[in-house]
């Protein structure tokens, strides 16, 4: 009986999101699509950076790799979306070995540089490989089809995006609660002790990179579907930085952080409206502010407020457990 109650809020949220498109305006559905895509990337990056402790400024590259591969499979090979999406994801995971292997030798600043360079190279390839990617003209993507049904509206696309996002969410949550998740956290907390317990450092660093690349690539494929158009500018170094920003501001290494960050990232451009051109600046200022004042992220903000409130009005001491 207890177990069923635990799953109730999740079920409730699932149903809520499931019926959302029926009642919401098209514009909001479009926003939700972007939100879920942002969530997927954030979850993947959270596993890599928040839990396994590996810095990566290259996530936009995988976002782009997934977008281009998935779209090109549809355009040039005529594959259906439900094949091209996972294909993009798998390719992304395989390519992630390019930065996963150097990650075994370097960490911290050096790793940041490697991933930065990787992102720039991939971006340059996207711009210059005109035959495949159409370069700076961008690529127009046809709507996904299932048999005779065409997913042409935001509402129909919503279901593809939401269901995949939800599935990936459950998978991520399960992974983090398992042996693999513990291995990641142990790597971040104490590489030395982790190894001496028997965690194969190399293997788990690579797994972390592959999982986050898989997530980012899938998100990229969905991005292509949602916007029906992709452009190398979407996958620049700056994008990578925003992805990192998003989870840092939301709360690195926390279960809820990625979603707050993703919400902020999706809503902010809309909330700014006329002040769009200040967008980057505002992001960067929020980021700087949160790094300096709230390093554990916005998600800890309520907790912080409560702690401060407690200090002002002392409560009873918690009783100690039996010896």
């Amino acid at each position, binding site marked *: 009986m207890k177990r069923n109650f635990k799953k109730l809020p999740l079920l409730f949220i699932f149903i809520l999101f499931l019926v959302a498109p029926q009642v919401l305006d098209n514009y909001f559905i479009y926003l939700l699509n972007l939100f879920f895509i942002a969530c997927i990337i954030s979850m993947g990056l959270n596993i890599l950076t928040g839990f396994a402790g590996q810095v990566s400024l290259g996530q936009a590259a995988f976002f782009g790799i997934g977008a281009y591969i998935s779209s090109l499979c549809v355009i040039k090979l005529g594959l259906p979306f439900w094949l091209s999406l996972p294909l993009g994801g798998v390719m992304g995971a395989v390519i992630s070995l390019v930065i996963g292997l150097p990650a075994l030798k370097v960490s911290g600043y050096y790793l940041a540089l490697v991933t930065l360079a990787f992102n720039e190279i991939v971006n340059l390839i996207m711009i210059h490989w005109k035959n495949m990617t159409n370069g700076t003209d961008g690529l127009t993507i046809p709507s996904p089809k299932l048999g005779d049904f065409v997913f042409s509206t935001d509402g129909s696309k919503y279901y593809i995006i939401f269901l995949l996002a939800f599935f990936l969410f459950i998978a991520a949550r399960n992974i983090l609660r*398992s042996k693999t998740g*513990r291995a990641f956290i142990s790597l971040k907390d104490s590489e030395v*002790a982790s190894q*001496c317990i*028997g965690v194969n450092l190399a293997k788990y660093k690579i797994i972390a990179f592959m999982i986050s690349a898989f997530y980012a690539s899938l998100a990229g494929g969905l991005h292509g579907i949602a916007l029906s158009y992709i452009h190398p500018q979407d996958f620049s170094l700056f994008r990578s930085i925003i992805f990192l920003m998003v989870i840092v501001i939301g709360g690195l290494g926390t279960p809820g952080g990625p979603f707050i960050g993703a919400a902020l990232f999706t809503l902010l451009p809309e909330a700014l409206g006329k002040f769009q051109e200040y967008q980057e600046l505002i992001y960067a200022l929020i980021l700087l502010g949160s790094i300096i004042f709230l390093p554990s992220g916005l998600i800890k903000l309520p907790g912080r407020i409560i702690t401060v409130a407690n200090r002002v009005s002392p409560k009873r001491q918690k009783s100690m457990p039996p010896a």
Partner: protein
Amino acid sequence: MFFEVRNLSVNFGGVRALSHVSLDVQKGEVHSIIGPNGAGKTTFFNVISGLIKPDSGSIIFDGEEIGHETPWGISCKGIARTFQNSQLFITMTALENVVTGMHNHTRSGVFSSALAVPKFRREEAEVLQKAERLMEFVGLKGWERYPSSSLAFGQQRLLELARALATNPKMILLDEPVAGMNYEEKQRLALLLVKIKEEMDITTLLVEHDIKWVMQVSDLISVLDYGEKIAEGNPEEIRNNERVIEAYLGKRRTLA
């Protein structure tokens, strides 16, 4: 011989951390290593656990040469360790630390975890139970759900011990296990070592500064000074050994 170290030497850019150290440990023994600060004791442990590669010499464990193994390889062979400065997984709870210790004895891979298949769920339940029993064994019952960083220092050492035991080792290396403990805790740990030897059939190699405690728990004691082994024997022999006394009280040194 269960565990042998032959002529082990380690240099750090000109500084001789360990110089031709040889050691024998019998199965089931409690073998202590003592010596003044800087004698190379922790370096010795770091080499055995694979964190540092020796410049020369060999380490043979249960018949196998392990001198050039990776740390995780050594863990698989059955050697576990604790650390001088607490290396707990601080973002995890106490129980999770111990559960992580069972890493090599859980089979579930990334995919079965992601999909939470029944086999994975069963394994998680088993592992949780075993971890709880280990925490009880070391005397930390009740502290399972607490963040590991909230434990007192002496308790943290016990937690590291539980985590090391979770790897199901044949031999454990304890680096200053009683540092920061009061008299009762030290006595309890001494009893625990006996239990570990008799109930779990685990050999113990330890490094410690508390000479009295070392004399109490050890079967055999080796003494290091300036990276060399200068004496070896049972507690009685070491207590009266001239060279050992000189190493600790000599003109250039302060009491350990």
